[in-house]
């Protein structure tokens, strides 16, 4: 995909099926810290939503509730029509449809790059190994590291590792991809290669929720930007409006600090 102007992208914001619907989500950590205070968010099919906010504002915690890596005490979350509950079958069903990319990559260091990609599809989706391997090689090519398939994660640079992690999530053919600060632990010169891969993905049909501090990415790729602070969703707006004329005082203060 060639870098398009923000205007064309944002105007293409899809409306229609709701992929993620969070209503009044409240979470307390065991130590009593009130991490999420009644968060609401709706994400539509094919939409790219960027969540920003100061550290400790609960944005990572919030997206981690979408695939039940974090539990919550009040409110409801529905992902692709499945309501998150204590029912383990629901959780597994949701996790199969929701991929996640972590700040620390979390690649499996004891497996080759190719095996990192193939492990879950073979185990969970019970697909034939040869077929998955072919798909995995295709995905590695797509993220630009086809020649690294037989290496081990420890031999790759941070940017390459994060691209493997994205390919690994894609190999499960998820409908939704969650990114938890995917570029925050990368050296500056490697941030771009990862953002480019994400930008290419955004052009496809996949639904993405991205926690990031990358303003440029949010401006160019996001359909909507969410600002979180102190465990609350402060503002949800289209990027142009959010970055030029935010409606909330809290957003303005945040933008003053980062721009």
């Amino acid at each position: 995909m060639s870098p398009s102007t923000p205007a064309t992208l944002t105007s293409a914001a899809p409306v229609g099926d709701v992929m993620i619907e969070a209503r009044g989500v409240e979470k307390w950590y065991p130590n009593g810290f009130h991490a999420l205070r009644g968060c609401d968010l709706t994400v539509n099919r094919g939409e790219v939503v960027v969540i920003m906010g100061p550290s400790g504002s609960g944005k990572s915690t919030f997206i981690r509730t979408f695939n039940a890596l974090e539990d919550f005490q009040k409110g409801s979350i529905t992902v692709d029509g499945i309501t998150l509950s204590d029912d383990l079958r629901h959780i597994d069903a949701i996790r199969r449809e929701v991929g996640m990319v972590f700040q620390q990559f979390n690649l499996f260091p004891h497996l080759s790059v190719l095996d990192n990609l193939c492990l879950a599809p073979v185990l969970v989706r019970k697909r034939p190994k040869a077929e998955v391997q072919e798909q995995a090689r295709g995905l590695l090519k797509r993220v630009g590291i086809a020649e690294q398939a037989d290496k081990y994660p420890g031999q790759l640079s941070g940017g390459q590792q994060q691209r493997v992690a994205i390919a690994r999530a894609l190999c499960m053919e998820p409908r939704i991809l969650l990114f938890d600060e995917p570029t925050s632990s990368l050296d500056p010169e490697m941030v771009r290669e990862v953002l480019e891969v994400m930008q290419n993905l955004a052009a496809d049909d996949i639904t993405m929720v991205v926690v990031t501090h990358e303003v440029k990415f949010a401006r160019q790729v996001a359909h909507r930007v969410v600002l979180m602070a102190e465990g609350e969703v402060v503002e949800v707006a289209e990027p142009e409006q959010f970055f030029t004329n935010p409606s909330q005082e809290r957003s303005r203060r945040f933008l003053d600090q980062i721009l």
Partner: protein
Amino acid sequence: MKPLLRRLRHDLFATPVDGLISVVLLAVIAAVATSFLHWATSQARWAVIQANSTLFAVGRYPIEQQWRLWLLTALLAAATGISWGMLRSHPRSDRGGILWPRNDRIAVGLLVALSLLLPWLLGLSPAVQLRWVAITAVLVLLRWLAGRFGPQLPAALKRLLPLGLPLLYLMGMVLIAGGLGLVAVSPSEWGGLLLTLLESSFAILLCFPLGLLLALGRRSDLPLLRWGSVLYIEFIRGAPLITLLFLGQNMLGFLLPGGLAPERVWRAAWVLTLFAAAYLAEAVRSGLAAVPRGQLEAARSLGMSMPQAFSTVVLPQALRVALPSMVGQFISLLQDTTLLSLIGLMELLGTARTVMANPAFLGHNAEVYFTLAVLFWCCCAALGLGSRALERRLDPATIARSG
């Protein structure tokens, strides 16, 4: 010769202080070595070992059934040769592709020398000497065959090959104890090195799954399971093995209805197993703690179930980290088997004590203890070597270099 001299000078005599330390240490080493050699060659009476070598090896195992143990030894040699060769030919091995790396040539040389020298030194009959040579030949031959032709075997067969090891263990049990048409040999007749290896291998093999379950139980979300595991581990770790052994001899008889209580040898083996499991659980726990939380989260976020995530992602990494301390546990377990002599079992130390009590060999304790120490050292060294080789093979860096 010259570079060697120069290196010696550089390593040992680089500065006056270094030189002084080297001279003193060399003098001490020389003094100890000469007095030991003097003792070993002129004062020690090795007849006590020669006359009792069979007793040390297998205890009072009936002579007419000893062919079973020879067969077992030959099978073990064959299995060793095959595994050794297959490991070396493995494409991921750090020495992959070289049929006879230098260390292997040295090892084979040592083995052949030992198989020729030891039986002769022990004054065994020519027929028995020949048997040891034949067994060594089997090992070396299969090492060569497996290293040369192993890689060409069909993949399916190669995957099945490791299953031979548990099968071999069961076969060994039958050969030793009898059954399946073989005359039964009561455990009270097993002894010496045979009993030591049997007890320790039984405990090592069974304490591993038990310890793994305990370690997982200790991390479980189910309170009952967690507290049960903690209680068990802490209780066992707080009690000396010898008290547990006595307790096992006395209590298992009360707990189980008459006839069901296992024979004393097996009772001891179970106590050893249950004891070692608690320590192993702690070793595994430290390995589990070393695996970052993100690994489990990544596996779970890919839709893997808890058992899938543990068996394919968390445990392989945890066990690799825990391997050195686990092998440390196995080595101390092997040495702890000497405590069995205190509850009247005729393992190596028990056998040694009966030999030393024999009036014919009075006053030759040093020879016996020295032999025992060497035997134990050999077993522990083998365990240590195996563990280091395994560690290297499982190290992602090594795999990457050769892969």
